[in-house]
């Protein structure tokens, strides 16, 4: 089968929030844009976001400011964030939210008709613009509606990119395949924007969707780009635990934002002992570890979690503010959350690590390659605050889209695509089909999930991490002989696709274990029982992962750019406390 050839200015890989916002920006700058996405348009993982988008609009708390948002983000990230990204994010989020509102996004409103904002963990002020508890759906829908009438944008759905193509050290295209019929497509592009999301599916218990297999991290890594902070994986404190079929599904932090409290099996409000000040609205790393400790001490709920209780709010309030949660528990767990507590436990939720990017532009270390959203790294440091992801997508999706467009505009006629690279990528793509009964990708996938779940849990230690790494490397060897689970057809072959996914997942897992071994301290989401304390010298260091000369994965500790004095002052400044009025 001869590959189909397509030429474009900016190739956007991924159609979640960052990809769509980037595509709109690049097209508005006058470039021809092609968006390729692994699922159908509108189904990307962003759609599952619930609580809201953080932006210092100061609609509910007049005291809020970019400074306060910046300080919260840096403190939440335990200071290893890319401070410039945190600054840009805090300053530009309000504008991006207002823009989305202009495009037609629905938001809950204050009585005065302003965008309403809800409190969330580790945000000093109520800051999350939201619509009920389905903010992600609205964000996707608004961006999709804007995308389809932006001239110059083409969308290729259910197309999976397998490799990036390089010429003279620059990214000039990609090889992909279309799921509907298995045909190969060679894209030539003047710039490529990665917006592929995270890799939560390398764990067994996760809130992440089918899509989150770390494809962009893999593509960037294979193209020679640098990855950063790969040890930083967020456990969301509250996922569903029962029944088994729904284990890991997200219970929005909005429940705690709207007043929900956590209790152990003895009825004790245990957050008192872990963060007396912020209680349930502490940062996610702290709350997740607290629940973990309660369970370990034998004070867990029947299925190994904690009770999350919002029954003190009126049924009306709950159904209005948390309609999806109400429905989700009623349907899936037969629990009426207006009458009974929910049972919750930590679930893998977000990748703080990913592709290292320049703050202003989203440029990776490989010319022509940009990244934005969860696939990129830096904004969130060692721990992401709830609500900072949706605003991240908008702020840096736009910035990366602008920069990719600008870069593409500076390129002359398209570089010639190197035939040998296309052939090598094609061989890799087609290999599972040539040995359908080779190692089962489904089996390998579930084994990998077990390894990550067991060896890179909330509390880690070196011997177990090393064992995990060995297991990942052994799986990698077996994966070289991977088949499709039996089917040889090219049309919508799920086993074939899983084999390709697994390749991405293995690289993400290897980067996670190698980095986690190196960071010999506890910081944010990375907690080590053998190094239980925060070590100030590590505050200056980020771990960078890159492909070495002989194809081996290397990890290097790199000194981060010092935070300018005036921003250090912002971080250490004390912000006036907000006392909420009862808003029921």
């Amino acid at each position: 089968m001869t590959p189909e050839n397509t030429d474009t200015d900016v190739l956007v890989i991924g159609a979640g929030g960052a990809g769509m916002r980037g595509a709109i920006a690049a097209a508005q700058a006058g470039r021809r844009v092609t968006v390729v996405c692994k699922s159908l348009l509108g189904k990307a993982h962003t759609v599952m976001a619930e609580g809201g988008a953080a932006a210092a609009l100061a609609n509910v708390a007049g005291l809020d400011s970019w400074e306060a948002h910046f300080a919260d983000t840096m403190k939440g990230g335990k200071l290893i964030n890319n401070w410039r990204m945190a600054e840009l994010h805090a300053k530009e989020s309000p504008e991006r939210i207002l823009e989305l509102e202009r495009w037609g996004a629905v938001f809950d409103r204050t009585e005065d008709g302003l965008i309403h904002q809800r409190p969330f963990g580790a945000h000093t002020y109520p800051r999350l613009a939201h619509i009920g508890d389905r903010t992600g759906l609205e964000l996707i829908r608004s961006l999709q509606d804007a995308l389809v009438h932006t001239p110059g944008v083409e969308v290729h759905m259910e197309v999976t990119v397998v490799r990036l193509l390089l010429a003279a050290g620059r990214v000039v295209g990609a090889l992909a395949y279309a799921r509907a019929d298995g045909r190969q497509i060679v894209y030539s592009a003047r710039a490529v924007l990665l917006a592929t999301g995270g890799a939560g599916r390398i764990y067994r218990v996760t809130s992440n969707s089918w899509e989150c297999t770390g494809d962009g991290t893999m593509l960037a890594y294979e193209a020679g780009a640098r990855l950063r902070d790969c040890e930083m994986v967020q456990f969301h404190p509250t996922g569903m635990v029962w029944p088994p079929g729904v284990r890991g599904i997200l219970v929005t932090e909005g429940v705690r934002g709207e007043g929900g409290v956590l209790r152990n099996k003895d009825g004790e409000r245990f957050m008192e002992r872990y963060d007396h000040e912020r209680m349930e609205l502490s940062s996610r790393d702290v709350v997740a570890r607290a629940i973990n400790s309660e369970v370990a001490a034998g004070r867990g709920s029947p299925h190994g979690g904690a009770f999350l209780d919002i029954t003190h709010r009126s049924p009306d309030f709950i159904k209005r503010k948390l309609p999806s949660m109400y429905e989700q528990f009623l349907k899936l767990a037969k629990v009426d959350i207006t009458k009974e507590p929910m049972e919750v436990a930590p679930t893998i939720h977000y990748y703080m690590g990913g592709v290292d990017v320049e703050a202003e532009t989203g440029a990776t270390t490989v010319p022509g390659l940009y990244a934005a959203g969860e696939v990129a790294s830096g904004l969130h440091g060692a721990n992401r605050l709830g609500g900072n992801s949706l605003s991240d997508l908008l702020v840096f999706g736009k910035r990366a889209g602008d920069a990719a467009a600008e870069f593409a505009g500076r390129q002359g006629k398209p570089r010639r695509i190197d035939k040998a690279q296309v052939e090598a990528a094609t061989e890799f793509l087609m290999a599972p089909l040539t040995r359908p009964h080779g190692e089962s990708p489904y089996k390998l996938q579930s084994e990998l999930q077990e390894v990550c779940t067991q060896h890179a849990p909330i509390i880690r230690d070196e011997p177990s991490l090393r064992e995990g790494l060995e297991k990942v490397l052994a799986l990698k060897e077996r994966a070289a002989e991977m088949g499709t689970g039996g089917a040889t057809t090219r049309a919508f072959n799920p086993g074939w696709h899983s084999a390709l996914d697994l390749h991405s997942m293995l690289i993400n897992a290897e980067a996670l274990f190698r980095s986690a071994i190196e960071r010999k301290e506890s910081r944010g989401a990375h907690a080590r029982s053998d190094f239980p304390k925060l070590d100030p010298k590590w505050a200056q260091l980020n771990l960078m992962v890159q492909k070495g000369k002989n194809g081996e994965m290397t990890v290097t500790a790199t000194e981060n750019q010092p935070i300018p004095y005036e921003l250090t002052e912002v971080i250490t400044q004390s912000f006036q406390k907000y006392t909420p009025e009862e808003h029921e």
Partner: protein
Amino acid sequence: MAAPSQELLRSNPLPADTIQLSVTRYDPAQDAAPRQQTYEIPYRDDMVVLDALNWIKTHMDGSVSYRWSCRMGICGSCGMNVNGTPRLGCSVFLRDYLPGPVLVEPLPNFPVIRDLVIDMTSFMEKLSSVKPWVISNGQEPALAAGEHRQTPAQVEQYRQFSMCINCMLCYAACPVIAIEPHFVGPAAIALARRYDLDSRDHAGQDRLRTVTGSDAIWDCSFIGECSAVCPKGVDPAKAIQQTKFESTLGMLLPWGGVSK
């Protein structure tokens, strides 16, 4: 604190050890026509149809093809016909179909790509045809002026219509689409209505015309199947009725705008 739920703690008795699923298989490259294949799988009380399909794919037959993503009824990927009714595979329990077998087929009214996977291209075109965005009156102030003011009551006007997750269940259930495939259809009309009812929108009769331009909307006899199958409580049938009403009003009153 309220006591832990008895429902939660109760271990459900198993009514059966296994259950049968009859799944549509079809590969246009190889098969002359779709056929049903039966799988017998271990039964658990909390299993949804999607769990069952995932179990089959992982343990019995790696070639079964279907779409899925979020597992929580928000992405709208896993629409399929379950015992003849359009449902989301992730939200429909096997326990409601005991003792089985459970019949799982692709959504009707769409071409089939393979097994349970349908071709949605026509729908994506229909969606954008209704101009699903806020049409301004050309007097937008700069962003620095802040958001449009919209009261909670004004949001309530259209909020329900904005819950659509494009899952295609209403198209599968629609008797008009079955006869007239060009009909713009329930979800697209609900989406048009969502923008028409939005206080920020100034489309006037513009969007309405794109919806009522084809005759098919008048063939809808308010059977309401679309609203009955909607997993998100959207009421496309109401949107269609309102659209017909507005359109008639527009014909009678030449200056007629959309009432908000």
